[in-house]
């Protein structure tokens, strides 16, 4: 697309960066948080932090769904796989450690674990092999949850069920906004989650927490403009909600997707790896769809797992308290080839993204 070329234009990027300098306060630090692995990828890959004034810090929040999936939910999938159920997952879930084992370890022990690109592929696989039992580990934020909802409403075959691990992002942002020692000044809201949920769920951030919030796209210029808009709001002392990504994000979001999600899921409190329990942050299957709930179907339920492996600092990395390079294990005991924590496994994990860039 032509727009893409423009959205990556390095000359334009420099000009926006110059603009950013004009609205940055001369004193004090401004801390802006994004909550999407793809934003972190853009920022790191294009070296955007180098273009920003020294007192403007952009940190990565808990924007990697694979990273925040608690060990207990990986443990459930591992248990099912070892019991002989075919477990299907997204590619970057495979190596995430549970309390003792990852799905890849289970596979090495002979379990049937398969990677799929999306839930539709998983359903097709199950249809082809009606004699086997299949479970799809449904991980992802609001961007991914609608696809799970559609497949459930399309009535998958009897040999198919779900471990629903979907999480809802605004409650996690709220948690971050309330962490006093984090002292965030603004949010770059996640563009693709927002295509689904729209803008309204973020209104609370400027209104209640006085934090400028800008929904931004994923091209370098999008992110830079997002930063500019936040700084400008801070300068004017008028925190509000703005949309930089209007080409795919509307105020109301994707209403069809919201409607289907509401039919299939209800919201419950959920554990996030490294963050603990967050109120109203997890999707659960509604009772009418209980027959697709792998917990009930296969009688599996792990309450607690070991979320943070010894020495791993993922719990600090995912709230931007430390940079991956501040973890003693980074690129020493922990590498993309031999990851210790979930943040080094997923391509959306901050440690993994930084590992590629260093």
């Amino acid at each position, binding site marked *: 697309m032509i*727009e893409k070329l*423009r959205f990556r234009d390095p000359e*334009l990027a420099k000009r926006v960066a110059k603009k950013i300098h004009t609205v940055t306060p001369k004193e004090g630090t401004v801390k802006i948080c994004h909550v999407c692995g793809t934003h972190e990828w853009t920022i790191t890959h294009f070296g955007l932090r180098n273009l920003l004034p020294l007192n403007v810090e952009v940190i990565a929040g808990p924007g990697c769904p694979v990273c925040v999936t608690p060990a207990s939910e990986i443990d459930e999938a591992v248990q099912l796989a070892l019991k002989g159920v075919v477990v299907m997952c997204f590619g970057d879930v495979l190596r995430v450690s549970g309390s003792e084992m990852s799905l890849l370890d289970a596979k090495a022990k002979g379990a049937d674990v398969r990677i799929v690109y*999306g839930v539709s592929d998983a359903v097709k696989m199950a249809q082809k092999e009606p004699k086997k039992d299949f479970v799809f580990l449904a991980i992802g934020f609001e*961007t991914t949850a609608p696809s799970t909802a*559609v497949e459930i409403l399309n009535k998958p075959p009897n040999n198919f069920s779900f471990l629903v691990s979907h999480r809802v992002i605004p409650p996690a942002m709220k948690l971050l906004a309330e962490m006093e020692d984090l002292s965030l000044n603004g949010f770059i809201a996640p563009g*693709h989650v927002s295509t689904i949920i729209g803008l309204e769920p973020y209104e609370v951030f400027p209104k209640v927490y006085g934090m400028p919030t800008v929904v931004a796209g994923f091209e370098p210029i999008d992110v830079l403009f997002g930063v500019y808009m936040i700084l400008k709001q801070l300068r004017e002392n008028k925190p509000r909600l703005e949309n930089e990504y209007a080409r795919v994000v509307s105020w109301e979001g*994707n209403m069809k997707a919201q409607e289907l999600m509401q039919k299939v899921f209800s919201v419950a409190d959920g554990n996030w790896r490294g963050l603990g329990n967050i109120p109203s942050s997890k999707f659960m299957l509604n009772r009418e769809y209980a027959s697709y709930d792998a917990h009930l179907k296969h009688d599996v339920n792990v309450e607690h797992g070991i979320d943070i492996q010894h020495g791993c600092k993922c719990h600090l990395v995912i709230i931007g308290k430390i940079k991956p390079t501040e973890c003693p294990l980074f690129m020493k005991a922990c590498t993309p080839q031999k990851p210790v924590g979930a943040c080094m496994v997923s*391509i959306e994990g901050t440690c993994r993204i930084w590992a590629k860039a260093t």
Partner: protein
Amino acid sequence: MLIVMCLAIPAKVISLKEDKAQVDFGEGVLREVNVTLVNAKVGDYVLVHAGYAIQVVDAKEALETIKLWNEILQVEPEANI
């Protein structure tokens, strides 16, 4: 193709049949995506995530955004540096 969770990539709708569309990610290879969640027409660009189109890219808004950027870059004074 990369298997990434949150990443969504724009693709052009080439043909439509019920809830499925053949789309082109610019590689010249057609791929099937589910279009239940969007009202897409042939020729539209859709944002695709994990095999599902999650939104139609609004070409008019895309141009508006670029226009807005240009305005910001040109009109507002670059004082203070």
